[in-house]
């Protein structure tokens, strides 16, 4: 069924980088306004799944629909917060300029950003608590602060879907709290949020719904449904004890 009631629909998705598929026959649907976490061990295909949802990777078979339309026709409808490591931090650009990049899709080619664009950028920087660093060169920030600026850029884009690739990886407590506040506020505003996450200990606390991935989709649903011992032991193999403790806890 093709329906625009769903923000994202993934159907029978298979993606291969070589002879072995990174994702095999993955299907799920994400409703508008949901806060969804993608979990799974290293190399499980979490980032590949996110890139497939953005239309970045070539699919062997399967479809990705965004508001009922093929993802390739919906560029700009999804705002993306990549992992921090993909950027050159010596680039001559300030925090405010990075956040303004989120508005580029709304600007006419010859016009400077309007007062409204500047206000949106200021508000987004305020949301991620980075207003005091507007004039700072991006490389002069800590890892967590850089992550927050990327979030401000994505928010400034004004998209209805936000995809975040490991936003909590290696960040300080202040950033973690700022990101959680932003997620809560975005959810309240009806934005659909999909987050790649590696920490099982916090996953059930942060997300309404989880997708447990390891090449295939093992489970999709509320944390109580996904956090079952037999599922986790199959997906995480030798590290079962940690999760047994987690389930008990």
């Amino acid at each position, binding site marked *: 069924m093709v329906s625009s009631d769903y923000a994202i629909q993934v159907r029978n998705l298979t993606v291969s980088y070589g002879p072995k598929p990174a994702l095999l026959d993955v299907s799920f649907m994400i409703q508008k306004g949901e806060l969804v976490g993608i979990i799974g061990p290293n190399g499980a295909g979490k980032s590949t799944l996110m890139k497939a949802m953005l239309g970045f990777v070539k699919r062997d078979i399967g479809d990705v629909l965004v508001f009922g339309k093929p993802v390739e026709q919906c*560029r700009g409808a999804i705002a993306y917060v990549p992992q921090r490591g993909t950027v050159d931090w010596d680039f*001559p650009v300030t925090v405010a300029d*990075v956040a303004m990049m989120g508005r580029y899709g709304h600007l006419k080619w010859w016009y400077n950003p309007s007062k409204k664009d500047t206000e949106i950028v200021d508000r987004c920087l305020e949301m991620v608590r980075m207003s005091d660093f507007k004039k700072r060169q991006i490389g002069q920030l800590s890892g967590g602060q850089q992550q927050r600026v990327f979030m401000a850029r994505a928010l400034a884009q004004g998209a209805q879907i936000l995809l975040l690739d490991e936003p909590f990886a290696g960040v300080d407590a202040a950033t973690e709290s700022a990101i959680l506040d932003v997620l809560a506020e975005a959810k309240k505003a009806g934005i659909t949020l999909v987050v790649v996450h590696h920490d099982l200990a916090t996953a059930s606390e942060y997300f309404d719904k989880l997708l447990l991935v390891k090449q295939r989709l093992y489970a999709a649903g509320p944390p109580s449904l996904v956090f079952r011992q037999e599922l986790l032991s199959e997906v995480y193999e030798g590290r079962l004890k940690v999760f047994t403790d987690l389930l008990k806890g």
Partner: protein
Amino acid sequence: MTDILSYGFIQNALWAGVLASIACGIIGTLVVVNRIVFISGGIAHTAYGGIGMAFFLGISPLLGAGIFAVVAAVIMALITLKDKNRSDTVIGVMWACGMAFGIILADLTPGYGVDLMSYLFGSILAVPDSDLVYMGVLDIFIIGYVLFYFRQIHAVSFDMEYATSMGVRSGLIYTVLLVMSALAVVLLIRVVGLILVIAMLTIPPYIAEKKVCSLKGMMILSSILSLVFTIAGLYCAYVFNLTSGASIIAVSSVCFFVFILYEKLKEKLRS
């Protein structure tokens, strides 16, 4: 000084310096921030094959270099976009092949007696009026491209993945950027030659990047620095009777090392 300026060939050299500096400042900045210095080197040396071909076919050497450089840029863009991991190997092969092809064709050219060295090390003092027009047109083309697509170039240069997610055709912007680098290389052949192109594309932007915090500012400061280095190099070449291209690069290199030393000392004093 007035004596020097009264010579027509010096006036042409200065104009060539101005036009090349504009291209260097803009394209050099994009080469540095996109970390495509090696690719630009590959394009520059592949262009040598075009010069050899031009002699062989009896057409303009700059036209030959231009065709080869643009084709090399498109091939390198496709390779780097498709397979980043081994792209440097292919670029190295094209680099060597281009030069070998150029030399072989020059050898095969009947009655060949043109100084191929002038294209390796530049001959800014022998730039004819027609080349100035050609350089001016290319400059307008480069400036137009950067002005028209500045936001897309800015977004792609900083974060290609994000730019693609916003709907920017990143692959196309990147390919055109390499084609622009190829055209800049062709511009610079007359001024400093193929061998020294890399220094002109990298030294001014490197210094500028440390002093400004915007891409536009970096382009403007790089252009000014390029012009200063070119004029100072030309003056040294005139006074000490040196090869002009090498002299321009020598001045740039001295400034580069002095700048690094100054930055290190400043850092040390601060800590």
